[in-house]
């Protein structure tokens, strides 16, 4: 660093580095659309996590290395409904598969291969993919928008599929923790 030439070249390098950095940051500013979609954990008050088994979302206790099987939940707000009801569409696998209520006589919970972001733009027909949320004591309940009164539930037994119930009781758990993964 003693010689002036060294100092000069050092300054030039510093300047070039600064320029390249400035250019990079200006590029970075642009694609705000490529933001990471947040992933959430949904687990019931009995501490059961959700995982996929036989193409079904199942609530159970994941022991040791099995915890990696826990399904990440993706969620978008359905802007078609009143925001006061916290209307959301839930999905798994990067949001490619959505949680839906079947169209039969009794509502049955199922997974459908529809992207949640596509549904978030939809209208009234998205109601069977939509859940209204209510909050109490740090926990959420999820009511089917298409089936008033029907709540998302787990069984008190472990490794049973996620379902819907009209009557929360000891066997049907409807309170969930819902938090960033």
């Amino acid at each position, binding site marked *: 660093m003693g010689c002036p030439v060294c100092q000069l070249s050092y300054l030039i390098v510093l300047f070039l580095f600064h320029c390249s950095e400035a250019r990079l940051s200006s590029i970075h*500013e*642009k694609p*705000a*659309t490529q*933001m*990471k979609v*947040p992933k*959430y954990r949904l*687990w019931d*008050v*009995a*501490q*059961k996590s959700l995982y*996929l*088994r*036989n*193409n*079904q979302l*199942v609530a159970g*206790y*994941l*022991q*040791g*290395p*099995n*915890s*990696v*099987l826990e399904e990440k939940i993706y*969620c*978008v*707000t359905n*802007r078609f409904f009143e*925001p*006061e009801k*916290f209307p*959301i569409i839930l999905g798994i696998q990067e949001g490619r598969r959505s949680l839906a209520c079947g169209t039969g006589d009794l509502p049955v919970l199922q997974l459908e291969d529809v992207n949640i972001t596509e549904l978030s733009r939809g209208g009234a027909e998205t109601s069977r993919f939509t859940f209204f949320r209510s*909050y*109490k*004591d*740090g*926990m*959420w309940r999820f009511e089917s928008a298409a089936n008033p009164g029907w709540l998302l539930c787990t069984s008190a*037994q*472990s*490794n*049973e*599929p996620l379902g819907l119930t009209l009557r929360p009781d000891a066997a049907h758990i409807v309170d969930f*923790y*819902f*938090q*960033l993964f």
Partner: protein
Amino acid sequence: MTSSLWFICCIIPYVSSFSAEQRKLSSDFVLVGEPIAISCQIAKIPTLHSDYNLTWYRNGSDTPITTETRSRIHQRDNVLWFIPATLEDSGLYECNVRNSDSSDKEYIHLHVFKNNDGLCFNGETMYKQKVFMSIGGKITCPDLEYFNDENNTAPEIQWYKECKPGLLQDNRFLSSKGDIYLMINNVTMHDKGNYMCQTTYTYMGIQHNVSRTIYVDIEEGPKKTPPVFVYPKNHSIEVELGSHVIMDCNISSSISTLNPYWQVNGEDVNIFDNTYEEQFYEKPSQGGGFIIGARFNISKVKSKDYSHKFFCRVLHPYGEAVAYVVLKRPAPNIQGYLIGGLVSLVFIIVATVFVYKLLKIDIVLWYRNSCHPFLSKKVSDGKIYDAYVLYPKNRVSCLYSPDIFALKVLPEVLERQCGYNLFIFGRDDLPGQAVVNVADEKINQSRRVIIVLVPESSCYNVLEDTCEQQLAVYNALIHDGIKVILIELDKIKDYTNMPESIKYIKQKHGAIRWKGDFTERSHSASTKFWKNVRYQMPPRQTVSPSELQLLPTAFNSPHSIMLER
């Protein structure tokens, strides 16, 4: 560490090699010497009807596992039992479901493990559960469904923390008899750690321990306070028309999964402008809690963006939080103008001072000429002469003739051209008058005393022999008010031989040096020398006609005197 690798290595090959059947593989864990019941998930698929056959196999064996319930390993009601499990039982098991139309398989990997040395658990096979300080909570002793005793009553559970019993002695911990939950009240960070729950299972008269270990994580948890806006904060930002702006609503919240959104003009931003596409985000916050946000790009700010408030709203369990930001056209750079203004002001002041220094004499003379007659009070100061002129008389031998200067040049300019009234000794004194008396009297009647100096070398001992100059100087210095104007007819290098009084005046007021000649040609009052003299002279007195009448005729018309002489 090695055992964790072992587990991961076990899982990954299966996950990858059975890619089609990956959903049909799971792992079960059991402590060596404890019983375990393994169930088959495909039996629970709703499409399967009740009339199916379920058979368990150990992988690689065609012989079904026995349904003989006295056997250590047996199938009972579609469940595979190990009472108890031994290390050799580790391995892959196949559950085969058949009905009239189809068959399906599911593989389950059983891992029989030992506890870590000196501990009541194996760090790799823990369940993970989470409790929030703000709301309290419960942890669950998991996977005990199959271990109801022979009377089908729920097992009694013992709880341990870090392998120590007596947890329930702390009344913050509560576990009802027959309950698989452990309630924790007034949760603190110290409650984080390894918990073990243990029960017994009696089968065929033999009691077996059933234990589960849980790592309990404690988090701050959601609070009953509304989210707080980090940005915007009901403010405005200055942005240029056409510039690129990222509108980022940033909120700190203790509750996760809340969804902020932007609105403008009472509608969603994408309706206001279809290029405004919102993106939501959420990330953990440094001090616990979460940062939630919604952001969109304004790639080019348009005029309409300036006319509305952009609201960011977020609904939360206790209401709604709203904050806005307004885009404003940038104000002109006040700082730049301020600096520019100050610089120009300083420049103007400096220039003015400089010009004044340079043109001070001209300005004063101009002022006297044009304004003074109107502004000055026209009250006589009782003096008759504007100046009393002292000069070395009869020095013909001098190179610089003070006589010519005093008697010709001076009156020509100051009296004829400028209208001053001078008393020149040797011109205006009457013969026979005592020099001292005349000098004393006339100096007192003068506003200035002009002393004409010549260099000693050319005209030795100029003033010494006259007492009038002594008087003049004395009057000027002591009876202050009479200002002395020194005029050098040539450069005087050495003042040492001059009287002290002259030295003092020279030092205090300086001297004006004459550079012209003594020819008879007319001298202009507007040369630098004469301007200097006029500057030092008093402003010309405008005397009222009544006063004029009282003056002697001689003083009234100096020109006539000049003519007479």
